[in-house]
């Protein structure tokens, strides 16, 4: 419940700074809800895969400085 406030603010901040939308997901899952966990992870993975590789906040150390 404390985390709900913190995540609300954090999510707004990251979106405000222009982090790509759709890469941050929140869900209530109890430790007893294995199936919901499985389902959510699958959905999130599919959603993020569909967006393709991230382009923002990415550090590529292979780049020659």
């Amino acid at each position: 419940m404390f985390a709900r406030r913190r995540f609300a603010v954090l999510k707004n901040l990251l979106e405000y700074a222009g982090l790509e939308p759709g890469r941050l997901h929140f869900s209530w899952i109890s430790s007893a809800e294995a199936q919901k966990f499985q389902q959510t992870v699958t959905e999130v993975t599919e959603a993020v895969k569909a967006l393709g590789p991230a382009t923002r906040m990415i550090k590529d150390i292979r780049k020659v400085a």
Partner: protein
Amino acid sequence: MSSKILSKDKLDAFLQGLKGARDVFAPAMVEGKVGWAAVEQASDMLTEFSNTEMSPKDFFFPQTECMMRFKNASGDPEGMIMMAEPALARPRALMNIRPCDAKAFQVLDLIFVQDEMTNDLYWRDKRERTACIGLACNDPCPTCFCTSVNCGPHHEAGLDLLLVDLGDKYLVKVLNDKGAELAKDLPAAAAGDEAKAAELKIAAEAKITGGVSMDQVKSREVMELYEAGHWDRVQESCLNCGTCTFCCPTCHCFDIQDEVQGESGRRVRNWDTCMSWLFTMHGTGHNPRGTKKDRVRQRFMHKFKYIPVKRGGEIGCVGCGRCVQLCPVNIDVRRVVNDMNA
């Protein structure tokens, strides 16, 4: 060495000549700030400016610099072995360096390159492949105190050429063979031009009023300066941020970090600051400079005592005044040195 003349209407031709073999950088207006930028033509360059907000040390000692790379694959025969990063691809020239900043290059040469073991090839390669062309200060700032610290508004150390603004032309002082090569096509200066430059030098030096005294700092023992009472007051307001060290043309402390990304790995160095408690922290939790006072004192002692002791009297400060202008709590180095000297 001899002096040449560069007429201001020939400045662009001179610049284009340099650009034939080198990337050229100079102080320029960069989004409202006086900074260093790559220049294409003479009109890109600022000629009327006090100094750039940040020192040009990062041309030789970038804030982040990849030192070596490795293949992050322990099974691979070449895996985990560090390989040096290639040196600077194309030679460079820096135009209109203020003499204080150039003097700082010379001070840092003494620190980065000492002997066979203490031989920083990253610094040295870039120094060797960069031509340094200075622009003498005819109007020093109120925060300048270069004349107190083995430097001056027309100082020549660390430069290949020094330009002195004579109005419609520059007197070009040739300071070494590299400079002679750069200025070989310029006409020779007349005796009157040299005399005028000499007058400007005296006039510029006279404009520097906020000097500091160093005689006692020089003669006192390390421990006497270290244990003096004034450090308690100097450190009070200090935030222990890194502003003074990062804007300083002679501060050269760094940290080394490893980074990996999949099969790529690198070792990279970043500027570090003696103001940070982490800088000296032992793995055991013991910290030899554990208090803010220790850290503040370290910075001034390093510049004004430790470097002179180790480097034949050279001072680790060139009097550029950047820290005076930028310190968020106005810890004025001139005041601190005068306290050390009191």
